[in-house]
C-alpha cells in the first residue's frame, strides 16, 4: 500500500519535472539530458557527448526557411565545418506522423544523400518529446551545448529572418560565432536570439 503510494508519488513528481521542461533549456543552465534514436537505429544520449560541443538543429525539409539553408548549401557547409572540428551535430525532426515534414528513417536517409548533408546524425522525434524538452519553436532552431553540458546558445541560425537565398551571404551566422567564441574560451556574445522559421509540427 505504502509502496504503491510512494511509486505513484514518484511518478507524479516525474511528470511534474517533465512538464516543467520548457524551463530547462535556458542559456547558462545545464542542457536537459535526452535519449533519442537516429535514422540508422542508433540511440544517442546527450551525456554520451560530455566533453564535446553539441549542436541541435531542428529541421523540416518542406519548410522554406529550412530550404533556404539547404538549397544554398549553407547548412551542409556548417555541418562539415563544425563536425570537422570535433563538434557533434544532431539534426532533429519533430514533425508528428500525419503532419507536414514527417519522414521515415529511410526517406530521411535518402534525402540526406540527395542534399549531401553531413550532420553527425538525424534524430527522429515523432512524439515531439525532445522538441518539447528544449521548447524548440521553429525550423530551423539551434541549440548549442558546451563540453561541460551547459547550454550556451538558444536561437536562430543567423540574423536574417527571411526565406531569401540571397540573404545567406552577408548574414551574421550565430552558430559559427558562438562556436568560434566558445572554442577560444570567450563568452558567447549573442547567446540568444529569436529563432525564425516555420512552426515545429508537433502532434495535436
Amino acid at each position: 500500500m505504502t509502496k504503491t503510494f510512494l511509486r505513484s508519488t514518484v511518478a507524479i513528481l516525474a511528470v511534474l519535472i517533465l512538464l516543467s521542461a520548457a524551463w530547462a533549456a535556458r542559456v547558462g543552465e545545464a542542457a536537459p539530458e535526452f535519449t533519442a534514436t537516429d535514422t540508422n537505429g542508433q540511440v544517442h544520449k546527450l551525456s554520451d557527448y560530455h566533453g564535446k560541443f553539441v549542436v541541435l538543429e531542428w529541421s523540416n525539409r518542406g519548410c522554406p526557411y529550412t530550404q533556404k539553408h539547404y538549397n544554398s548549401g549553407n547548412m551542409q557547409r556548417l555541418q562539415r565545418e563544425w563536425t570537422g572540428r570535433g563538434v557533434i551535430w544532431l539534426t532533429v525532426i519533430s514533425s508528428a506522423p500525419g503532419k507536414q515534414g514527417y519522414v521515415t528513417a529511410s526517406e530521411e536517409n535518402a534525402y540526406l544523400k540527395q542534399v549531401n548533408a553531413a550532420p553527425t546524425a538525424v534524430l527522429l522525434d515523432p512524439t515531439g518529446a525532445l522538441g518539447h524538452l528544449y521548447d524548440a519553436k521553429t525550423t530551423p532552431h539551434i541549440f548549442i551545448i558546451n563540453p561541460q553540458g551547459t547550454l550556451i546558445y538558444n536561437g536562430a541560425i543567423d540574423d536574417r529572418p527571411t526565406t531569401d537565398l540571397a540573404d545567406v551571404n552577408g548574414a551574421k551566422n550565430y552558430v559559427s560565432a558562438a562556436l568560434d567564441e566558445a572554442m577560444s574560451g570567450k563568452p558567447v556574445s549573442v547567446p540568444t536570439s529569436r529563432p525564425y522559421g516555420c512552426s515545429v509540427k508537433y502532434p495535436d
Partner: protein
Amino acid sequence: MVVSFRRKIGLLAPCVILIFAARLSAQPPANSHARIELISEQNLAPPAKPLWVGLLFQLDAGWHIYWQNPGDSGEPPTVQWQLPSGFTAGPIRWPQPIRLGGGTVIDYGYEGQVLLMAPIEAASKGHATSIPSLSADVKYIVCRELCIPGKVHLTLASPPHGDWGQWRALFEQTRLQLPKPAPPGWKVSAESNKSHFILSVRGAKQVRSASFFPLEASQIDNSSPQGFVSNRTGFQLMLKKSDQLTKPVSTVRGLIIVGPGRAFEVAAPVVSR
C-alpha cells in the same frame, strides 16, 4: 441612418475633394493562397493630409499572414515603395492581430481579409493633386501547416467605374481596428521577477478580460497562459518571460487587447523586485 449619412457623404465628396478609390488588379501568383491588391482610399492626394493606400490581403480559409511581431514563427510582410520624387511613404499601420497556432508555438497575425494601410505624404501640401504613380514590391509568407513565401510587384491603377465606395468603407473599418494610445486614466507598469513580468494597469475598472500581444520579440513566452486578475483599481496580467530573454529590459511594449476594436498600445516601465 449611418448608411444613408455615408451615402450622402459619398455623393458629396467627389464635388468637394473628389474622393474616389483607385484600385489595381494584381496578378496573384498561382496557388499562393493569398490575393493581394494595392488600393487607395482616394484618387486625389488631399491637400495638407496624407493619401492613404493599403495592401489588401485576401487569404484562403485556414491560411494566415503575420503581424509586425510574428510571434514564435513566420515573418511580417514587408513593402518597398516606388514613389515619384517629392512623395514619401509612412510605416504600415497594423490592425489588431489574433493569436494563431496552438500548443507551445503561438503566432500573431491575420486570417481572412486584412488591409495594411500606409500614408503617402507629398512634400508640397498646398492643394489636391492627382494621385501619384505608385508601385510596391511586397514580400510575405503565407502559412497554414505549410508555409509559402511570396513576392509580388503591385501598381496602383484606377478603379473600375463606380467601385470606389467599397474601398473607402474598408479603410474606415480598418481604422477602427488600429491600436489606440492607452486611455489617459491608465497607469501601466511591469514588475519583473525571475520568471514573469506582472503587467499592472491601474485606472482601468471595467475591464473583465484582457490579453497582451508583445511588440518586441523574445520578451515574453508567447504560448504561456496569461493569468488575468482584476482588482479594485484595475487589472494585472502575468506574462511568463521568454527563454530567449537573458538581459534585463527597461520597458515591456505591446498591445493590451480588451475586446474587438479595443487594442491599446502600452510601454510599461519595468520595476524589479
